[in-house]
């Protein structure tokens, strides 16, 4: 455990980069990320890739990066050539440390053995496959365009191409998904044996097709059902993986470094549509519309939509709120100390939801993390 504490806490000093590739063949009904729907328009992907490269050049120089993550949208909508040139832009601008994690999210239907092999060649060493489920009916409800079989093949393709980390993204609690269906999905996932597993409870986000459906009476996800499924997964995965964050499981050497950086309140630069960065203690977000993004880049301006700099106390609380998501917890520090002495803090400790272990604040039941985080964020600064 102390190894993993050193690893998760050490991420505060890491430097990461996030690159957003917004294109999707169609928008999934539950997704509220910045997405450009290719079924509705046909923008030039090459033009976007060039714009991102230009944005990378606008970012002040920095020391070499420890992790790069291509997220989406669908980064696998890019050709290996386009990805390679973006990686080169990053490496020219900042440099990459030896053994840097270079990760990409990919849809199983894109992830052919050939594509996988090409990406491995250009230096991508981690892939996160959006498998979601191994049940075709559930995939249908989620609006995904791949099959369970394509999901299996994609994982095997990643493994055959020598990726250091293959990760599966799963979604549980989709309306209509039975507990048995989920158990099968988890079994198949474990049999495939990826190094990393992410499992997300289907969430109804505002403004999505799913939220409109639920508002007009369609069944939505159910908390108890999702809790059952989460607990089942946690029990099964415990044999093979470290459960290192609320939604993430991995073998010891395969924690996602990019994500560790965000939870450790570390810094990351971010490029592309709607991307969020954190540098010099300041959080920055990009515009979410493609035309204004391209327009700003053309004018040589940063495509920024806003920034936020927290005061010292708010930042201290943010550190604890982010760190609590990790199973290793977070050094209690000042905000943790205030929390433990607060009325809600004492109540949570008494209820066994949170505890102090060797100076670290640890949430015993990850399913209740937000209940704790909410109280932490509401804390008043200690009176001097």
């Amino acid at each position, binding site marked *: 455990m102390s190894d993993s504490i050193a690893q998760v806490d050490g991420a505060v000093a890491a430097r990461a980069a996030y690159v957003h590739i917004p294109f999707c063949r169609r928008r999934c009904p539950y997704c509220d990320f910045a997405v450009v729907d290719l079924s509705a328009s046909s923008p030039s992907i090459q033009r976007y890739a060039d714009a991102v490269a230009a944005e990378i050049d606008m970012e002040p120089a920095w020391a070499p990066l420890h992790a790069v993550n291509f997220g989406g949208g669908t980064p696998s909508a890019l050709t290996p050539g386009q990805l390679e040139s973006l990686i080169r832009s990053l490496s020219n601008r900042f440099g990459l440390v030896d053994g840097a994690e270079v990760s990409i999210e990919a849809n199983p239907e894109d992830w052919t053995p050939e594509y996988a092999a090409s990406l491995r060649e250009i230096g991508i060493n981690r892939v996160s496959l959006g498998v979601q489920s191994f049940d075709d009916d559930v995939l249908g409800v989620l609006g995904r365009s791949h099959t369970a079989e394509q999901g299996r093949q994609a994982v095997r393709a990643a493994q055959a191409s020598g990726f250091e980390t293959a990760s599966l993204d799963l979604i549980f609690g989709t309306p209509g998904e039975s507990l048995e269906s989920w158990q099968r999905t988890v079994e198949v996932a474990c049999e495939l044996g990826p190094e990393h597993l992410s499992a997300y409870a289907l969430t109804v986000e505002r403004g999505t097709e799913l939220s409109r459906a639920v508002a007009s009476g369609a069944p939505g996800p159910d908390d108890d059902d*999702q809790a059952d499924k989460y607990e089942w997964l946690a029990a099964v995965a415990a044999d093979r993986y470290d459960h290192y964050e609320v939604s993430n499981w991995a073998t010891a050497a395969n924690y996602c470094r990019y994500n560790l950086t965000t939870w450790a309140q570390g810094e990351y630069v971010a490029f592309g549509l709607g991307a969020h960065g954190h540098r010099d203690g300041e959080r920055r977000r990009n515009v979410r519309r493609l035309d204004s993004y391209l327009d700003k880049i053309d004018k040589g301006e940063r495509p920024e939509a806003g920034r936020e700099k927290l005061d010292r106390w708010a930042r201290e609380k943010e550190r604890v709120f982010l760190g609590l998501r990790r199973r290793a917890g977070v050094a209690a520090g000042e905000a943790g100390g205030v929390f433990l002495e607060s009325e809600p803090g004492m109540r949570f400790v008494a209820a066994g939801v949170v505890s102090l272990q060797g100076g670290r604040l640890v949430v015993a039941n990850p399913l209740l993390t937000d209940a704790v985080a909410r109280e932490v*964020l509401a804390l008043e600064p200690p009176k001097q």
Partner: protein
Amino acid sequence: MTVPARIRNFSIIAHIDHGKSTLADRLLEFTGAVEQRDMREQVLDTMDIERERGITIKANAVRLEYPASDGETYILNLIDTPGHVDFSYEVSRSLDACEGALLLVDAAQGVEAQTLANAYLAIENGLEIIPVVNKIDLPSAEPERVSAELLGILGGAPEDVIHVSAKSGSGIEELLEAIVARLPAPSGNAESALRAMVFDSHYDTYRGVVCSVRVVDGEIRAGAQVRFMATDLVENADEIGVLRPAAEPVKRLAQGEVGYLITGIKEIDLVRVGDTVTDAGKAAGEALPGYQEPKPMVFSGMFPTDGDDFERLREALEKLRLNDSSLVYQPETSRALGFGFRCGFLGLLHMEIVRERLEREYDLDLVATAPSVEYRAHLTDDTTVQVRSPQDLPGPQVLADIAEPYVKVMIITPSEYVGTVMELIQQRRGEMGEMTYLTPERVELHYQVPLAEIVFDFFDQLKSRTRGYASMDYEPGDYRMSDLVRVNILLNGIPVDAFSSIVHKDRAYRYGRAMVERLRKLIPRQMFDIPVQAAVGSRIIARETIKAQRKDVTAKCYGGDITRKRKLLERQKEGKRRMKMVGQVEVPQEAFISALRIDE
């Protein structure tokens, strides 16, 4: 001064929305008391809350001058009365200051119970009544039918009913002539020792207590020493005057006149509505009749949502009481709600108004407990205790029996709804009294009903069963023995006094069942299972469980968008801030309000 023969003191009796304030505005305008350009709607209603609710809380007296067709100029004192049953004592005092009243009825609506109750009160007080039908220009107006209704109640001939449109001003002159011709001049004795009745009082930040007075005998002179007979206070009459409607000081107020009196008194408690003011030197032998101590009928605990606001609540109540001596309160401690006050009100409307003013004018977040009445518990040692809060009910080992207050309820309803009204009354343990057909279509019903059954949602029920057509009024009746028990509601094993209630034995199970089911739905799931129980004594009569919350976490951190996630959590926390801690359980404010609305 004006000779009493040319003074007319009158008030307007009307149901809410029947146009009383508009008619008053028109009278002011017609007699030139207010220039047309200064008119704003409802000049006489001074508090915002009154303007919004369209009701008048504080009586006001305005002096008008009217040159009548007989060539004489008359002083008309228009005494505004509160419109609601909760303030019936104030109404009776205001009426006592008058010789006549206009009974104003909406030509489309007809007579309502409240109007009728006040009309009966006026008749009992010996007032001359002029029936007035308003809103005759409405398309739905039925002035003939409404006139017939009025004559059925008051007697008289069709030509006695005056038809007006307060909105357009038609019929106003005819009305003013009728006031002069048909209402008697004030009686009383100009030579006797001073007796003036205080029919209203209010607190002014700069002037202290301002009383509205009607001089019955003798006269008040500015600067004289006066004695308040009920409180036996002697004060200097620092200023006397009349309202036109702006205050205008005068040297004296003579027999029959109406005006205001300002002394050095700063506490409203010391000036009681109904009290008699006399000359300190040459005191009257007897006070004017009719004075009563204010008597609260309905009680409710008021607790600040945030315990730190207790002092602010105390200050706010003190300030409200400056202007409302009928509001009573005393500190109360609730295990569930912390420190607050048990407040007594004249009635439900009074309670709502006070609560709204506390929240609006003093920016307090309050939890109010279920309204309760004053029970009389007879103990085995032959003593009696007053029980204003369910918590105060003595235990079964010392309790002999309990009596509860009944009220006399009068309901006027279209005859087609008589059946459903009777059904409602039966559910509320009421007893049928007289039933009179005002016209073939409208019925006046009388009942005796426990007040406790009225304070819940009786009025709303009555309205919904009669599609809003029925109106009601009530007055205090006697105390009667009833088979009552206290139902306690326990949350996680802790009795929540705010939810406990004294109810009839036959209804205890239903109350308990309804409360626990409601609370299970209203209280969000928390970190542990929460039993919700209803109990009579140590016997549990109903139980539900709020299952522990199992999931309270968002899956992702939105691709590095920490700000959004943090703000979402902060917003959610803001929503939870309005929760009240009951032991270890977070109870939303909403639960306190909604849980107490029990549907039939």
